[in-house]
């Protein structure tokens, strides 16, 4: 409907009842571990996090993999830069997998590039899986609650709160305008699509400004003051089973890291 499917999924995930702070702590600990660790441990993290997301949180596999693949497009785009080296002909002294001569220069792919890319690939994969765990299991409203508890400046949390609320208001409007244009025969051909999109952006801006004016009155009626404090309710329940698994899992990962390469 409106593309922000991630948000809807995160409110429906099966791990929603766990305290958000715990989930964020687990994900950040793993992220840190992944960024300093090595390939074997990173592979283990990918598997473990995939289990959390797909099995425990019940996020559809199709969506999880779509997320992974599209995110990896940045990695794919950067590949040529990482693999291909260039130098003056005759200066190349390393083992080469492929080479092309271009005048007095030579473009080549050194064997060492492959291992570099291999290492980078698993680091990004592992980080992505931790990132996915946050995206799919912690709704933004709860992230905001954690940020408040971490004593972020009030201004930051206030702005995030207003933005989060109005992102959905404006997305809905833009979606409806888009459907209306299509219903009236718009988006016919390339040029018309562009013109319609331009009109949509302009209209969206007008609506956004009107929303602001109305919101200003609405907030004034509720006694809008300097800060916008709110109180959140939790029905989170700690789960022995999941806490045990995360702690044991992290310890195992540290052991694995120490055993396969340690911190040299």
């Amino acid at each position, binding site marked *: 409907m409106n593309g922000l499917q991630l948000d809807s999924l995160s409110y429906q995930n099966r791990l929603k009842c766990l305290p958000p702070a715990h989930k964020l702590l687990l994900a950040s600990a793993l992220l840190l571990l992944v960024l300093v660790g090595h390939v074997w441990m990173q592979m283990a993290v990918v598997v473990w996090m995939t289990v959390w997301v797909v099995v425990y949180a019940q996020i559809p596999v199709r969506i999880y993999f779509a997320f992974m693949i599209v995110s990896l497009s940045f990695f794919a785009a950067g590949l040529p830069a990482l693999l291909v080296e*260039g130098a003056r002909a005759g200066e190349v002294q390393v083992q080469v997998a492929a080479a092309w001569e271009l005048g007095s220069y030579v473009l080549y792919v*050194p064997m060492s590039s492959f291992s570099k890319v291999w290492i980078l690939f698993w*680091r990004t994969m592992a980080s992505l899986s931790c990132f996915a765990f946050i995206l799919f299991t912690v709704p933004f409203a709860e992230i905001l609650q954690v940020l408040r508890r971490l004593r972020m400046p009030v201004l930051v949390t206030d702005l995030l709160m207003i933005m989060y609320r109005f992102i959905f208001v404006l997305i809905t409007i833009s979606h409806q305008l888009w459907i209306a244009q299509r219903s009236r025969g718009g988006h016919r051909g390339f040029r018309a699509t562009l013109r319609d999109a331009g009109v949509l952006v302009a209209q969206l801006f007008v609506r956004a400004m009107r929303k602001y004016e109305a919101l200003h009155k609405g907030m004034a009626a509720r006694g809008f003051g300097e800060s916008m404090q709110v109180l959140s309710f939790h029905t989170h329940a700690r789960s022995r089973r999941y806490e045990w698994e995360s702690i044991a899992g992290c310890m195992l990962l540290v052991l694995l890291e120490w055993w396969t390469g340690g911190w040299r």
Partner: protein
Amino acid sequence: MNRSRLVSTCLMIAGFVLYFLLNEPETGHAMHIMEGYLPLSWALFWWAVFLPFFILGIRSINKIVKEHPEMKLLIGVAGAFAFVLSALKIPSVTGSSSHPTGTGLGAIMFGPFAMSVLGSMVLLFQALLLAHGGLTTLGANAVSMAVVGPLVAYGIYQMIMKVGGSQRLAVFAAAALADLATYVVTSIQLALAFPAESGGVLASFAKFAGIFAFTQVPLAISEGLLTVLVWNWLLSY
């Protein structure tokens, strides 16, 4: 229909041709450095570079908000608008689209430091709601898109206006160059993290900049045109 309206219509069409050509899925969001791409040391470094600007930005907004509390609402709605613009053409979970569109415009309107706050928040939402970019790389992305971009936009705009250039030119140049600056900084960040074996950082910069030039240079031009259109429209409203 007067002449300037005709001109702006043509501009709008040209702008959107470019914009949509380049914002098809897969290519468009290539400038958000993905989660885990940067090594820990560089990720931390860019966070450290970003934070002072962020704090300055918070201070400058705080000053505005003290006098006009309702500005908080306006800034929030403006941020939501910027996010929605960047999310408009989303086909799937992860979607297409680009950097916080309108950083240039925002910088001219709110000042560069306020933009560093707003821009980084848009980036955070892009990461959390659209899976563009990442959390550890948020610092690096914020430096290129929410700090350098707006600074360049603001500087160029002020400079051209002082020299006495036309306002439209100033807005166009500000937005387009802000985009280019963003792309250059991102390339530098990648080059620093992955220096080439021969030629080091410089060669690596050439490689990354070369790859992303295909999408980013035309994108900068289209963003410039788009910003001019919105600007015209704002003035007439």
